């Protein structure tokens, strides 16, 4: 009978192969889903995976979607490495949109070049401030950061809704729940003429490099990794657990806040009540699939962005709800967690023992 046998040492090879295996399994499951829905599976996959990126514009849209995912995921990875479970990036993202929008609206008349940097800072600070709530409650009162950060997602959504239905509503906006469009000086420059790809993509790449430097090259990053992999060793070495919780959450919040800024100053151009785009939740999957590693996150965010775009495609051409991409995202994480078993175990054939 087939059974799992523990490996003497965790397999490095498997830890890199496992995301590939998971992606392949998701692909197969995807074809099964399309068949079950009575659609041609090959056509479905073509719509999902190829047609979104068939031309330069498609590729630019892919990078556009990957931008907030990369930002949110690299921030989360810093915390996840130390077992700090911030799952409220979605809410921190929304606070980032609020911080950035505040600056954009306040300086609407100005055309200073300092507005964009100020918006980045405001987005980061707002996101970090939102993440500081679970950090404070965890370090001071031992309150579970998973539940607190998640609850704050719902609060953030209501907060945005209040702003765009109330004080920030565009007076000339025919009563739609949205702010005025930002001035040109509050919009991120476009990288490729004729596309929507904006400078936020550069910020995201920079964040990946910074994340690499912090996690793999700095002493604090090392301490956080130790805390995540061997909590007892970290305690014995005298590393402050509270400090890691603060760093983990604030980094995650700031990065998600910048991601929010790059959405409102990028493709949205204003704040609306439709900012709950799901990037913050999808970024959790990106961080795991990317093995909490910056280069992995880059690849995983492209894959996840493709799932988002593919969902839009099959909605348009196959008349299927776009939430199918959330189904595939969930499947991807399921398969990853399942494939990960081979990092620590190997399959072996043996006789069943009584």
């Amino acid at each position, binding site marked *: 009978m087939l059974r799992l046998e*523990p490996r003497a040492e965790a397999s490095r090879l498997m830890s890199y192969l496992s995301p590939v295996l998971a992606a392949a399994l998701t692909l197969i499951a995807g074809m099964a889903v399309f068949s079950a829905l009575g659609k041609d599976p090959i056509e479905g996959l073509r719509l999902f995976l190829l047609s979104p990126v068939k031309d330069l514009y498609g590729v630019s849209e892919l990078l556009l979607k990957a931008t907030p995912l990369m930002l949110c995921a690299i921030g989360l990875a810093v915390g996840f490495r130390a077992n700090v*479970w911030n*799952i409220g990036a979605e809410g921190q993202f929304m606070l980032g949109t609020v911080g950035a929008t505040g600056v954009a609206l306040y300086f609407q008349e100005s055309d200073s070049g300092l507005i964009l940097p100020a918006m980045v800072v405001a987005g980061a600070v707002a996101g970090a401030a939102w993440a500081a*709530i679970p950090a404070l*409650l965890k370090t001071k*009162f*031992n*309150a*579970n950061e*998973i*539940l*607190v950060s*998640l*609850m*704050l997602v*719902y*609060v953030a959504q*209501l*907060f945005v*809704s*209040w702003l765009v*239905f*109330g004080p920030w509503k565009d007076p000339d906006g025919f009563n739609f729940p949205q702010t005025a469009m930002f001035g040109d000086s509050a919009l991120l420059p476009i990288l490729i003429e004729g596309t929507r790809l904006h400078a936020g993509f550069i910020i995201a790449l920079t964040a990946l490099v910074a994340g690499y430097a912090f996690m793999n090259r700095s002493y604090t990053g090392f301490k956080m990794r130790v805390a995540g992999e061997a909590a007892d060793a970290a305690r014995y070495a005298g590393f402050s657990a509270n400090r890691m919780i603060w760093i983990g959450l604030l980094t995650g919040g700031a990065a998600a806040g910048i991601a929010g800024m790059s959405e409102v100053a990028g493709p949205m151009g204003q704040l609306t009540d439709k900012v709950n785009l799901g990037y913050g*939740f*999808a970024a*959790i*999957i990106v961080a*795991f699939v990317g093995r909490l590693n910056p280069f992995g996150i880059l690849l995983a965010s492209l894959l996840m962005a493709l799932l988002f775009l593919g969902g839009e495609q099959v909605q348009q051409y196959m008349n*299927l*709800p776009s*939430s*199918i*991409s*959330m*189904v595939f*995202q*969930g*499947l991807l*994480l*399921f398969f990853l*967690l*399942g494939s*990960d*078993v081979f990092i*620590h*175990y190997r399959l072996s054939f043996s006789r069943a023992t009584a």
Partner: protein
Amino acid sequence: MDASLFSSMLFATVVAGTPLIIVALGLLVSEKAGVLNLGAEGMMAMGAVAAFAVTHHSGNPWLGVLAGMFAAMAVALIFGFLTLTLQANQVAAGLALSIFGVGLSAFIGKPFESIALPAVPAIRIPFIADLPLIGEALYNQQALVYLSWALFWAVVWFLYRSRAGLVLRAVGESPASAHAIGHPVIRIRYLAVLFGGAMAGIGGAFLSVFYTPMWVEGMVAGRGWIALALVVFATWRPLRVMIGAYLFGGVMITQLFIQGSGMQLDFPAQFLSSLPYWATIIVLVVISRNVNTIRLNSPVSLGKPYRAEG
């Protein structure tokens, strides 16, 4: 407050607390066996959409509840396979289940949006429903409200009075010792996970078939997470789960009554709507403040994978 307002608020509080009781008691049992399933939100969403679809097609809300239960158990089984058989991290697998369940429910539920189901009539218990003040509120209720009370007694009896419950708690406290004296740890945990799934499914079904008889994407609105928080708040005790659920129900209902009363307020409606979420955070803080409260009450092996040696 006049008597009729009191009565209708009590009625609404009981209704709002009911899904939380059902779901949280299910989670309590699986946590007592040492399994932390953060997928409650996804399981509830699956239960809600399956129950709605089957009720809509069959016209029978009870078939709907059964369908909701089985749908949630099916996704709970995925979680069980990953965490129990394949030893995956329970936190990550639970998050995956939440994302997957919410997504799949939105996908399945798309054709059912903007359909309303007929309201299911309440069941009036003779005589005691005539009691002044509380009679109408407590004893002229949906069948699932009575079920939640029965479930409470059943869980109390099971955990603290039955041998099987003792074994389940032993598995949660010390899986290695339970295994050593011959109990099938993994199988017991599977059953506990399935029970948690079944209850989450019924809780979801209550939302879409009885509470607001319609399907809207995202209608679970964090109740799965609140139920998880309730178990912590209750320090893993059934009676406190029940009390906590009604307190939450009360918070949800109070804000709805204030919003519906047309009272002129200086603060916005969204602030009121956020109260249940703040309340969750506050109770977590209050209960977790003393590290020992959590340490002494939570099942020792909660969230840790277990693999039988040999």
